[in-house]
């Protein structure tokens, strides 16, 4: 089997070890005998997104966000929105999350318009939200899973009525530090503030993305061979324990909502 990943703007949007997510997808496919080809795509390049099974885009600073915003408007935005509506699997981290939404308003009040495929709005706040995050997620149907990572953003994102949250914050700030939600999910798009990188310590999410991509290319229910995730699971658990112990020492906010709570809306 063979999958193709479109890595959007790897030169510009590569904060916080974003490439670790691509490394993880590549290895986990390789170990299963799936040939994963990663194609970097930059500014100004027109892309036929139907050629890809999985899209990935990482985070950047305001300056890079501005360039992406222009490129979305002039070159890729419409095609990208169509690909999402068509069910392409997409992992969007931090800055990418913001630009898939309606807009991102920077600290200086400049409004960078996103492609609006996610019904979310983001405004920069004064205080950066930095630290370890633990989230429970109901993304993997029928199971409550945990996600652990690190966040570092000044943008406060609020979800509109047409997206689900990725999960419920147990520890950390999440989307805005107020409503207890983290990330957004729409069709097969997973958008989140978690880096760390997110996929290596949360292999279930990597496999969820690979499964969506396989399902789309080779038909629903294409089996995904299990892997020995002892090391990954140990890292996942250790990171949660470590985040908990740090939270006891500092003022990391704790989520108010019950672990496993979901924000499900009709889409």
């Amino acid at each position, binding site marked *: 089997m063979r999958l193709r990943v479109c890595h959007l703007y790897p030169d510009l949007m590569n904060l916080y*070890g974003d490439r*670790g997510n691509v*490394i993880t997808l590549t*290895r986990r496919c390789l170990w299963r005998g799936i040939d994963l080809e990663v194609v970097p795509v930059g500014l100004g390049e027109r892309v036929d997104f139907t050629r890809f099974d999985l899209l990935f885009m990482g985070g950047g600073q305001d300056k890079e966000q501005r360039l992406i915003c222009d490129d979305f408007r002039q070159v890729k935005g419409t095609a990208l929105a169509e690909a999402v509506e068509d069910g392409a699997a997409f992992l969007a981290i931090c800055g990418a999350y913001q630009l898939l939404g309606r807009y991102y308003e920077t600290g200086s009040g400049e409004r960078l318009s996103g492609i609006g495929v996610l019904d979310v709005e983001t405004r920069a706040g004064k205080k950066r939200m*930095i630290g370890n995050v633990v989230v429970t997620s109901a993304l993997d149907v029928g199971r409550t899973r945990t996600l652990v990572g690190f966040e570092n953003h000044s943008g406060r994102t609020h979800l509109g009525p047409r997206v689900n949250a990725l999960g419920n914050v147990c520890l950390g700030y999440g989307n805005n530090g107020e409503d207890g939600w983290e990330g957004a999910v729409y069709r097969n798009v997973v958008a989140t503030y978690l880096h760390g990188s997110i996929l290596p310590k949360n292999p279930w999410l990597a496999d969820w993305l690979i499964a969506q991509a396989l399902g789309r290319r080779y038909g629903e229910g294409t089996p995904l061979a299990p892997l020995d995730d002892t*090391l990954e699971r*140990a890292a996942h658990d250790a*990171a949660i324990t470590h985040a908990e112990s740090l939270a006891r020492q500092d003022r990391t906010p704790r989520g108010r909502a019950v672990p496993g709570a979901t924000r499900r809306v009709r889409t």
Partner: protein
Amino acid sequence: MRNLLAVWAGKATLGLSRRLGHGGSSLPGMVALRIQPALLLELARGLRRGTIIITGTNGKTTTARFLSTILEDAGLRLVHNRSGANLVAGLTSSFLEASRGGVVDADIALMEVDEATVPEAVRELRPLGLVVTNFFRDQLDRFGELDTTVSFIGRGLDAMQGHGFVALNADDPLVAYLGRGRGGHVVYYGVEDPASGSKVMTQTREQCQCLVCGRPLTYEVFYYGHLGRYGCPTGDFRRPAPGFRAGAVALGGSGGTAFTLSSPDRPDTQVRLPVPGLYNVYNGLAALTAALELGIPVERAAASLRRATASFGRMERIAMEGRSVLLALVKNPTGYNQVLRTILESGLPAGSPGRRLLMALNDKYADGTDVSWIWDVDFEVLAEPGAQVAGVVASGERAHDLAVRLKYAGVRRDQIQCVPDLGEALDLALGSTPAGETLFITPTYTAMLELRGIISRRGFAPQFWETGGEAAQP
């Protein structure tokens, strides 16, 4: 009177914390500042010449050591914050150590200062000169983003108000941008030797965008990381022509480095450094630029560097239980890649089962609380066929993150051991290193301090303030 009291209290604290076995502390400074908040400014006023501030991501310590060797050879008395405690309280502690009867008896203070502290340090110390080495991605969580770090230094330069000199690395676009359109006395240093660079970027890509318009910069030559000969395709920003240049660079492996220094109104001078690596050419060049700006004759400065001993190499070697232990501090992807390259280039005895490594990752404030940077380190080189790695012990508070990173780098699962406790990890790694061979240890900052504590309690290494703090800094 208040100064004297503050100095006395600070010195008393200093003596006490030494006896309790804590080195390089900022506590004495904190105590003294509580009594006299303006103490640093008051003490700095007593310097016969003034202060030189050295900042940037990598190379601060080595540059400061090169410069201190040159200046001490020239007969100047220095205050130097050797222990790497470089926030304002730490700076104050260094001045306290050098004071006699409430007065600092020194010509020049050589201060390594963290990026975020530069504006405050400039206001307090009113420096004679400021040297900026480079900006790599490092502890982003502490300063927010790289642009924020750059803006800290920008504010520091503003605070100099045209006094003193500013020495900038022309080959680092993030550093060179700081001098754009700036008045006052700005000098640039850089490498002019395309033969020692490459046409393609081989290491993890740092920020390579134009700081004026944000477009990707184009490079004629890459030296390392994003350092090179660059320009913006729109023509709004290009590498400034450096006045202080290193040409004909000869990287002689672990034996050291040589280059030809060209500088305004001086004869070209041959420079030999006892330490390896192109990054050390930059450190040497930065130190020479500052020394020449201070009026030291070029031949004397070059002669001092030649005699600088290898003890201030970035790697520290300790003999332990019949093995040789090499400690190399790591703090960001660029530095880590350089360290890995040096480890893999080191010779291996015939018949050896392979190299043994101990990697320690902590996530305290001084290490950077966000460990995502390990995904930007090219650990993949350890899995290459020629690497001859027999085993890696991952340790520290984030040992598990490191173990997973190594697995995804392609290191065989049975070659990775995950032991968070540093003492246990050291025992295990030493035990699996054959007698007569080398154990390579790559710790982050606080893991380094902890490991040195463990090693010295076993009677093998000096306490860290005696050897000068960050002994191994690329």
